[in-house]
């Protein structure tokens, strides 16, 4: 039984790396705007599908990925302007339902444009998987893990070192006070959606070689990424990434040792436990929002 453990842990890492960047996107938007964006899972879908479409048009991978990420950023901004901004300041539940609507709209349009069949993206560096102890870790999973760390680092630098980042932090801390010093919460919301969409698209492009890309991948990804974000306290990007790896590992261990088929039930049972134990999540003790 113990012989399975190294592989199950590595599989947990792989699954976690798939949820990680979605979770980070949740956190960025929740932090700055207080909105739970259930359309977050659609950004990886759009990113991966756009990238696949460009590849099919014989664009090389790197420029295709760059264009896909940029286009998804624009879609994120557009989402904020068209769907969130007009309802700015509404009840949180109203905004949550709006994001559900946005996610349906994205899914429907993707089905119209790309159809129902899954699309493939090539691995960034094809080749044999890495052997660790008695288990294996795919090369693309390593890319996903590295990117999740890199993106969190990039976010940290952005919020700590740049002026718009500082403004966003101020807005997250206290929207009213930041307005007094000339920071527009609306503009910050636009920034948050743009960044979160970009992060989502990067995530989508890096995981599509592992999972394939389908028009309806967003809902499942969004829910799991969301659970990961809640596990990390919803307000802390590194904790959200850690939450993603915890969720992945638990899914893998439960499937491997206990009951295959119950993976998502266990994930959500975990969500319920975390929610009822501690509203602020596992690692978050301070109530203050931070990025």
């Amino acid at each position, binding site marked *: 039984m113990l012989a399975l453990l190294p592989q199950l842990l590595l599989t947990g890492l792989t699954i976690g790396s798939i949820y990680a960047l979605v979770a980070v996107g949740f956190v960025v938007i929740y932090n700055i705007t207080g909105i739970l964006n259930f359309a977050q899972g659609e950004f990886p879908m759009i990113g991966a599908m756009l990238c696949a479409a460009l590849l099919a048009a014989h664009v090389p991978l790197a420029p295709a990925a760059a264009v896909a990420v940029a286009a998804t950023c624009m879609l994120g901004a557009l989402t904020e302007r068209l769907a969130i901004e007009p309802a700015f300041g509404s009840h949180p539940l109203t905004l949550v339902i709006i994001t559900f609507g946005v996610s349906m709209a994205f899914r429907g349009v993707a089905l119209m444009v790309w*159809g129902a069949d*899954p699309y493939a993206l090539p691995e960034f560096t094809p080749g044999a998987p890495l052997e660790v102890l008695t288990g294996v870790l795919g090369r693309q999973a390593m890319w996903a893990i590295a990117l999740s760390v890199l993106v969190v680092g990039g976010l940290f630098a952005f919020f700590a070192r740049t002026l718009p980042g500082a403004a966003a932090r101020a807005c997250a801390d206290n929207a009213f006070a930041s307005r007094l010093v000339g920071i527009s919460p609306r503009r910050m919301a636009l920034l948050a959606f743009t960044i979160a969409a970009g992060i989502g698209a990067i995530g989508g492009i890096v995981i599509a070689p592992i999972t394939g890309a389908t028009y309806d991948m967003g809902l499942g990804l969004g829910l799991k990424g969301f659970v990961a974000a809640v596990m990390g306290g919803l307000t802390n990007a590194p904790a959200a990434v850690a939450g993603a790896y915890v969720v992945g590992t638990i899914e893998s261990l439960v*499937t491997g040792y206990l009951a295959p088929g119950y993976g998502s039930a266990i994930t959500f049972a975990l969500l319920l436990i975390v929610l009822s134990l501690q509203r602020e999540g596992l690692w978050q003790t301070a109530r203050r929002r931070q990025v």
Partner: protein
Amino acid sequence: MRMTRRWMSRAAFAGLAAAAAMLAPAAPVAGQGAAVKIAAIFAVTGPASSLGKPEQDTARLLQTQWTAAGGLAGRPVQIITYDTETDPTKAVLLIKKAVTEDNVLAVVGGTTSPESQAMADYAMQAEVPFMSVAASTTLTVPSRRWVFQMPQRNALAAQKAIEYLAATGVKTFAFLYRNDDFGQDGLVGMQTFARPRGMAVVDAEPFAATDTDLTAQIVRARAKNPGAMVVWSTPPTASIAAKNIRQLGMRMPIVESHGIANRAFIQLAGPAAEGVVFPSGRLLVADQLPPGDAQKPLLQTYARDFEAANHYTANTFGGHAFDGLTMLADAVRHVGPDRAKIRDYVEHLRGFVGTGGVFNMSPDNHNGLALSDMVLVVIKNGNWAIWK
């Protein structure tokens, strides 16, 4: 200011609503007095859309072709398509709409087994011929008077897969399946047909359609030392399974189901697709069939027409819709637009060449396909080939 802004936006919305309302009353389509109407009720959206979409596109293709050919038996023909969103409740509502409001002659549809099951009850009650495109064995076993089944039943596919395993001398295998009606039905089939051949299912591992990695299930199965891995699902999970198996360095044969009979599997699984064997109808390997094959001309024509009309290649799911619709057309040509006569005609249809095989219906076999209607396909150099 805020008030006016809200008010204006509401006025704009009211305007939109009014515009929508104005579009609502629409003139009925003229001159369909004697039209032959057939309902095509598929899961165009929702979880089964990768099956339902080609089914719907096939219905559209046939509508165009039949209209161009001057209708059916001298009458105009109308295939009305409906989308169930993969929801059995909607499927029931839509078959009622098709029968009681649109007055269709017969119904083709029910992409997934739950949809088909729910629709079959109403077809029986309303006495309307229902050509199901779902593969669940219990749909037509035992036979139901008004229900016919177009795809090779899961049981048949399982039997064919077992045939391959037996031929290669495999004694034990592990079964990985998507835990929905497709996978669960496949499991029953494999267990049923493995036993008489002296084969053992050493492990059965379910997974969800949304799973992104199946390594955990595979290492569990590996611990039981199976001689082969059998996977019962559709892409993307079917491809993820193949990839994960090869990634773990496992070299045993991989057998998959007829659910991977599309290009997406090969694209997603990449090198891991090489050597995968699966039971399938002959559509995929139409060009490799011997010249005398009964199905060959039909399959080649269907594949060519479908690809010309749509942006993607034809697959067996669309083929099931094709078989249901052409079978009904054949019936209408012979006995005219009468539900009871159509049912009787279809029930005794023999030697009908479709994409799924040569149908030989009888009162206690409303599927009419046999083991010989499936072939074993092996993936070689990123393409399909008939396994000897």
